């Protein structure tokens, strides 16, 4: 490994940071410190700290309304945090907008699918490629050679990305007409097309049957291994979370109540209490 990659991060990791050993020598892809946001006096997220390694698969779990999607919205700058800092691959996002955060390497999917339903599958992926492939508007209007070349390249790249999920045959279909599972997969492909360093998946297995979920788990691992990127996912399906996540953070009422490996989380009393409620005195 080169010396540059061995460089230690600028700020020392907090002692409770958990990242996979193979990512320890490299700069983390996400470093959120003391993150908080208030909506009209209500603290939706409070003192959220999380570090994600470059090739880590991280899970964010917690009861409904715990603030999980809010965390995604803070990372992608849909909301601006009231307190704290977010570093993406070492870059501070304080003065970035959503587009710049995307360019810095964050892409996401949505809890409720937000594809461009009237556009073709291929065009949806091409929107993801929007900033990767450039030609000026004049070139497009005049149909100069650069236009044809770039469009051909985009077409090939889109099909290549679709082939991850074996969806290249659906390229011409209208996105809104796809079956539910395929729409979820297309959303992941569209996000991948933006060339992220960290892929945020908001409940990727929602509405999937066990067979589809197993396939999704394999695919998330495949994406991580092929593209060498980090994945952070919000999910209620514990089979999926415990099966592929290396580090898990549990959120309740906007604060992290536990962090650790799947084994540590499963036996953590605070987590069990948040999910199942506190056992009353005297109950059997």
């Amino acid at each position, binding site marked *: 490994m080169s010396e540059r990659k061995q460089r230690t991060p600028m700020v020392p990791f907090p002692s409770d940071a958990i990242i996979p050993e193979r990512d320890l020598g490299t700069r983390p892809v996400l470093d959120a410190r003391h993150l908080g946001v208030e909506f009209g006096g209500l603290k939706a997220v409070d003192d959220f700290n999380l570090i994600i390694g470059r090739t880590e698969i991280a899970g964010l779990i917690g009861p409904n309304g715990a603030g999980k999607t809010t965390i995604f919205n803070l990372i992608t700058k849909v909301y601006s945090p009231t307190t704290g800092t977010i570093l993406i691959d070492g870059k501070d996002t304080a003065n970035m907008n*959503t587009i710049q955060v995307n360019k810095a390497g964050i*892409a*996401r999917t949505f809890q409720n699918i*937000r594809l*461009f339903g009237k556009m073709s599958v291929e065009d949806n992926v*091409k*929107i993801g490629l929007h*900033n990767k492939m450039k030609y000026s*508007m004049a070139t497009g209007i005049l149909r100069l050679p650069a236009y044809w070349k770039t469009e051909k390249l985009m077409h090939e790249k889109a099909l290549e990305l679709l082939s991850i999920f074996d969806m290249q045959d659906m390229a011409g279909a209208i996105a809104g007409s796809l079956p539910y599972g395929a729409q979820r997969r297309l959303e992941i492909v569209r996000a991948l097309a933006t060339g992220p360093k960290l892929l945020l998946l908001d409940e990727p297995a929602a509405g999937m049957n066990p067979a589809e979920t197993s396939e999704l788990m394999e695919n998330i691992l495949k994406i991580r291994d092929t593209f060498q990127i980090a994945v952070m996912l919000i999910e209620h399906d514990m089979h999926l979370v415990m099966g592929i996540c290396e580090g898990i953070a549990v959120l309740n009422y906007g604060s992290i109540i536990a962090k650790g490996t799947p084994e540590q989380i499963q036996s953590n009393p605070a987590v069990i209490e948040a999910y199942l409620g506190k056992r009353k005195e005297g109950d059997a």
Partner: protein
Amino acid sequence: MSFLSNLINGISLGSVYAIIALGYTMVYGIAKMLNFAHGDVIMIGAYISFCVTQYMGLPAWVSVLAAMLVCTLLGITIESLAYKPLRNAPSLAVLITAIGMSYFLQNVALLIWGSNPKSFTSVIDADPIRLFDGQLIISDVALVTVAACILIMIGLTWFTGKTKMGRAMRAVSEDKGAAQLMGVNVNLTISVTFAIGSALAAIAGVLLCSAYPTLMPTTGSMPGIKAFTAAVFGGIGSIPGALLGGILLGIIEIFGKTYISTELGDAIVFAILILLLLVKPTGLLGKKVREKV
């Protein structure tokens, strides 16, 4: 033969409505707002063309390019000064701003060019085509107008369908937030939409005044409202809908004025719109939007 001649006049007038309606429909589709100042951009375009030919003595085609350039800049300026700050405001606020902008432009024109009508010289200088031993005369302006409309339609369909910016426009029109999260510059996309709509308005203004040569500060308002009607008629947000709505509206107007009553021409147009909207509230080609509950 007079039927054919009326039909051609209707299609020609309808083509102008269609070109204007494209501006309304694209801006509505992408920025989800009704730009009521669009009609007045037409008027400004016609005045610019008038000044370039009359006062500067330059050829007609230069005046059309100048009108397009000025209107494009005007469209971008209006959007960034008046509408952009209201991007997240309630739609009523934006609507009122657009109406205010419409009056503002009319009054600026009044200040610069006065209230006396100017006599616009047609930018097209060709001989009309005579068919059937001169019984059917198709004017040069009508021909150019229809040809321009067809070319613009083909160009726009291709632009929105096959180029990066066009794809970005469709994406923004469906889901602004998701497009932004995929790295699409929503503000730029909306600016480009206004630029295209305003350039088309300039072309429409020149063609309109070439056919009906009275030019004054209120010249744009009635065609603007009619074109808006055409956009709703065809299904607002739909590009083919704007073409269909525009042409149908032009034909209905000319036939209504010729065969029923000259005075009631406009009333007939709007009566038909009301009837159509009762039967098909989304317009001819508009898609039904199902709200999730």
